[in-house]
Structures are given as C-alpha cells and as structure tokens.
C-alpha cells in the first residue's frame, strides 16, 4: 500500500505555487542487494497534475528521478477553493494520489 503524497499549495495572486513529495523507492533496476541479486526496477512513470479535474501538466519520468520524488510547479488562473490534484502510476502499475485545496 502506497503511502500518501504530501502536497502543499500556496496562492499568490492568481498563481498557485505547489510543492509535492511522493514517498516512493524509485528503484532503477540496476542496484544489487547484499546477496548480489538485482533489485527489480520500480519507478514512477507518469505523474498527472490536475486543477479541478482538468489536466494542467503531465510528467513522464525515467528511473533517474530521485527516491521520494519532490516536485514543485506553478499553475496559472487559480482562485481560492480550486483543487490541485496529483495522480501517479509506476512501472508496476501501482498508483497513488493526493490533493490540496487552495486558500
């Protein structure tokens, strides 16, 4: 079970500044454990960012995004009450999401 995305949003004028942190191992598939066995790849492939259910930005990631990915971005034309939401899917089709209401 994936733990929850931490997401914070701050409104400055009509621009929302959003920061988020996704707890995720982001395994590259090239590391080996203590017994020399390859640790299978597990990394987030797609991150979708929504404003009130409308897609604002889509991110396609490779294995080289750091463990527990941090992402900050900005969204235009926002007002108090708007909901910024994030969805992620990894290469093993595990998913997670989080959302924040701007105020």
């Amino acid at each position, binding site marked *: 079970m994936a733990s929850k995305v931490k997401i914070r949003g701050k409104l400055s004028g009509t621009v929302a500044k959003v920061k988020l942190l996704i707890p995720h191992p982001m395994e590259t598939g090239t590391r080996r454990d203590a017994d020399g066995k390859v640790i299978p790849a597990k990394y987030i492939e797609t991150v979708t960012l929504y404003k009130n259910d409308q897609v604002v*930005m889509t*991110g396609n990631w*490779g294995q*080289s995004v*750091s463990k527990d990915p941090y992402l900050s971005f900005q*969204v235009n034309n926002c007002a108090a009450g708007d909901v910024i939401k994030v969805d992620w899917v990894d290469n093993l089709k595990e998913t997670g999401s989080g959302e924040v209401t701007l105020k």
Partner: protein
Amino acid sequence: MELNKRLFSRPLSRRQCIGGLLALCSTALLPARLFASTAAFSATDTQAVLDDLSEGLPIEESDAVNLKAPDIAENGAVVPVTVSTDISGVESIALIVDENPNPLSASFTLTPDAVADISFRVKMGKSSTVRALVKTSDKVYMARRDVKVTIGGCGG
C-alpha cells in the same frame, strides 16, 4: 473487446480487415506523438534522445532557458534541478543527464495553465552535462550546465 468478438465470430470481410489494420496502426503510432516516447526513455545515447525529442525541429541553445543545478553535487542520488523560461507557448520541458545509463530523466507536457517553472531532483551516476530542453510548436530551446558529482547516485 467488441472488435475481437466481431472479428472471431465470422470470417473477415475485406472492409473489416482493412479497418482493423488501420485501427491497429493508429494505436501503435499514438505514443510517437507525445513529446517523449518510451523509446526516448530507454535510449542509452544522448544524441538519440535529442533526435527523438526534437522530432525534426531545430534545437537552439538559448539563454532564455534557465537551468538551475549545482556546480558540484555532493550526493549524486539527489541533485536538485530547476527549469524555467519566459518563452511563450511552451509545450513541453525535458531534462537530460548525458552520462546516465538512460540520459532522459523526465519530461513534462504543459497546458497553457501550467507555468514553465518546474523543480525536482534527479540521480546522477557521475559528473555529467545536464541539459534542459524546452519545446514550442516550431523550435526546441536548450540550456546546459556541467555538474560535478563527488559521490555517484547509482549503486549506492
């Protein structure tokens, strides 16, 4: 699937056959239209990534693309990068680490509501050139920086 049921229940007419083929082709072609195809992510060579991302558009080095990254990264596992630009009509932004096994690290597709200012963190196996690509409808703008890594981020 509806199509499968129809295809298997009776012999194919010529029309169905052609229609089915066309449908297959269009699904197969779909990922190629996105800024970064999966092929770009599995490419092991920077030039291949650039070719794939630019889709034939000219790549121009530009000061208008602002790539923030440390000159020296003490920990290659966590290298903070920021890509921002004032260029209008940005369709997508990508980050490439030349010396990584798969150079393409991330690509973002932007809608008009998204501001072209993104920060995140990448892993770097060793010292490398880092490139930020900003794509508009008619050109790809690029900025690069050299980042020196003192401890590699792969293989921990």
